[in-house]
């Protein structure tokens, strides 16, 4: 065969090798360490941040807003309004993570100095971190966190220009962020917040939201409790009410307690809204595992031996059947970092080496192959026997 002539053809390998060596010989020997693409990625996702509490103020009679800034004084990363921050608290020497929707706006993170705020309501006895934040956290306290996480945000290529937010309780926080960003002119959509509370005292961030109201941001408080002086909307977030505040093509964002989700699914069904126009925020771990469909209630009250493998290290700790594998580790002082704590994000992906377990079907965000090989999201997985798991070294 012939391409250009015998000698030229057979000399190809030598020619390309010579070309390579010449290329290297004339190249600079000065190291190039800059990677602008990694730098931009790092401005958005810098990893774990060292944070300090710089302000604590009341957000309602029962909730507090905590302002966080970076210890090094730098700006906080970019994020989308509606996303959350995962905070790692060290309480009695044990590391416990919790996700909180960021109630401040993305533009505020980029101020100099930038800040992010979370708004946390005192629990009714079942949320010890919520109580810790409300009672024990002080200005000047330091903690670690990472942001912005989660998929609950306005995506212009997917969502309608008109947004109706359906909020309950402290679920108002992502919408407070969106509202501020819209008012600031850096988020391009129209927002109507339908905010259900029992009494006017329960309304979180009431004054702040009143102050943000503008042409593009409407805030409608809806009270279900009996309050004679209330002149606004009353009752629940029913299909009728939602329909009344919707205009044309609308995307519905929903954030609130689990009971509200169940109610709203039924109400929204009545309105024949296309699936792509409805977006639920994840709702965290079930407060009552026995209520989860398929949970073997006879296991309640059991405590098992959980062997935790990290590298070549093995530790055996107790694990309650009604608490997730993450909680077992946290109680034992073994660090198992989480982000969403709702079974969705997979940050706490864990290998089960042996034992029986229950995965909440409402929070099962696992990949198909992971299910085949006994990988679980530890925040949404409950032990049903003695178990052995392998987790990352922290």
């Amino acid at each position, binding site marked *: 065969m012939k391409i250009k002539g015998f000698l030229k053809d057979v000399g*190809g390998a030598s020619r390309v090798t010579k070309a390579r060596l010449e*290329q290297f010989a004339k190249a600079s020997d*000065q*190291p190039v360490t800059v990677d602008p693409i990694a730098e931009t990625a790092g401005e958005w996702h810098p990893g774990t941040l060292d944070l300090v509490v710089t302000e604590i103020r009341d957000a309602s009679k029962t909730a507090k807003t905590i302002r966080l800034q970076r210890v090094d004084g730098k700006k906080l990363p970019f994020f989308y309004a509606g996303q959350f921050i995962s905070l790692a608290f060290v309480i009695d020497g044990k590391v416990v993570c919790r996700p909180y929707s960021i109630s401040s706006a993305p533009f505020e993170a980029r101020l100099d100095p930038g800040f992010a705020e979370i708004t946390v309501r005192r629990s009714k006895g079942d949320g010890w971190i919520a109580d810790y934040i409300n009672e024990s956290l002080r200005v000047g306290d330091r903690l670690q966190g990472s942001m912005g996480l989660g998929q609950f945000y306005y995506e212009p290529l*997917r969502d309608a220009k008109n947004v109706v937010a359906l909020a309950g309780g402290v679920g108002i926080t992502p919408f407070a962020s969106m509202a501020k960003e819209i008012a600031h002119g850096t988020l391009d959509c129209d927002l109507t917040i339908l905010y259900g509370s029992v009494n006017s005292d329960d309304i979180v961030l009431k004054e702040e939201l009143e102050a943000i109201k503008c042409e593009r941001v409407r805030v409608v408080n809806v009270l279900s409790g009996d309050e004679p002086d209330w002149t606004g909307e009353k009752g629940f977030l029913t299909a009728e009410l939602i329909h009344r505040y919707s205009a044309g093509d609308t995307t519905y964002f929903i954030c609130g307690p689990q009971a509200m989700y169940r109610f709203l699914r039924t109400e929204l069904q009545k309105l024949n809204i296309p699936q792509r126009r409805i977006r639920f925020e994840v709702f965290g771990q079930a407060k009552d595992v026995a209520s989860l469909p398929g949970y073997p209630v006879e296991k309640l009250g059991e405590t098992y031996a959980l062997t935790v493998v990290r590298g070549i290290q093995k530790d055996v700790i107790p694990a309650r059947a009604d608490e997730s594998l993450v909680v077992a580790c946290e109680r034992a002082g073994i660090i198992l970092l989480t982000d969403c704590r709702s079974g969705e994000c997979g940050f706490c*992906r864990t290998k089960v080496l042996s034992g029986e377990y229950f995965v909440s079907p409402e929070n099962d965000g696992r*990949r*198909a192959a992971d299910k085949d090989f006994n990988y679980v999201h530890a925040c949404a997985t409950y032990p049903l026997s003695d178990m052995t798991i392998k987790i990352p070294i922290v």
Partner: protein
Amino acid sequence: MKFYKDHYDVIVIGGALAGLSSALMLADKGLDVLVLERHNLPGGLATSFVRGGVEIEATLHEMMSIGDRKNRLKVGKFFDDMGVDVDWLKVPECYHASLPGLEVTLHPGLKTFASEVDAVAPGSYEKVLKLLKLCDTVFNSVNELSIHPMSKVQMLLKHEAFVKTAGYSTKEVLDTFDLPQKALDLLAPYWMYVGSGFSELPFTIYSVLMADYVGYGSYIPKKLSHEMSLKMAERAEAMGVQIEYRQHVDRILVKDKKVYGVRTARGDEIHADYVICSAYPNKVYTSMIEPIEEVPPEAIRMVNGRRISLTAFSVIMILDRPAEELNIRDYSVFHGDTMDTDAIYADLAGLGPYHYLTCICHNYGNPGVTPEGTCSYSITVLPRADGWKTVKPEDYDRVKHEVARQVIDDMSEYLGVNLLDHVLEIVIETPMTIARYANAWNGCIYGYAHTMEDHIVARLQTAEAEKFIEGLEFSGAHQISGDGMGPAVTNGRKAAKNVLDDLRKKEAAQK
């Protein structure tokens, strides 16, 4: 608390396809291997994620070098040999080529392909088949020579076509075939999977690309590429490999030009005789070697003398209709206003508008991959990093959305359906996404550009001389076989083979 052994035979940095292939091969020979992966799951870019209850393929379009069960190619055979039992699905076509005035779907099989080209470029059958057969001959030579090196004279006798085409670009060889333009257009689309225009692309690489894909078709794992990655990791662990996730290696420890271990961001110093590294040599030689004085100037010249190849931009959507209702009819479509690869390559230096789009609808290769009544559709551009390097953090979101809108609008126009009216989920992957998840240098997924100055034949010939630190091997797209998930496996095996060869040499010297 002690998380690591005092010593390992080999530490593998990066648990993606290349690193896992190295680990499998070394464990198979009884070596004690530790894999450190910075993400919380294996596979690197060969992964998936769940969005809105749907599992979505992150990057894989199709795997080459698999072959069917009876006639495995090298990657498929390696998986079989290692006991990595992937549920492979054959992709139904090569691709649909979409150009102004030209819409053709081409299927695997050299003769099938040639006759389908002939149908639109009459009279080209013999020439196209001759070209494809030449590719196949070169491909077979490359495969054989990578296992059995031989002298130049022997090579010329036994592998004439390989030797005689090695010094030429794809364009130079294609020119000798005197093909009609339409035939040339239909023979070009796969170029995107190697990422250099035909005036630069070594014909050797083109041959491997065409012979492998057109000759044997391509494959995808049924449970997405996470199935493949996870099965590799599971096999490796079953063979005794220790894999630790979320461990970021900061430093490679070197003394007297010889590697002795690594240090993680967590602060663990771990010792080993060999280190196989998936990080780019650019990163390793400029900031990972400790002490940095151990890096010779030739190593810096080498990385500065090579051109970083392509990165990726991809819009992945889950749409709320079955594919056919949206006029999506093929697994893969290469859509452009030209198939002039050099012109397209020049275009890729910017931030768009991009005119050469690769669209994948997984449902055609993997029915049931999305819920009933929906489909998955992705639009991909593989740009050069140059344009994206200029994007400032504060402009990143705007640029990302502008580019996404442009490519979606282009394909909407082509399909005659506004895709934006059907989006259930949308994910936009950019070079920054790749930098974030895979930590790849400049977000690059393709390693170094295949050019006549960085030719695979030259890479093979100078490989020994380009080892600057004893016991340090590299694996990944930046190595000899270049980009792609199939080549990643081959690169990983090559790194492992280098370790095994070196061990054998040392054992022989001891005797």
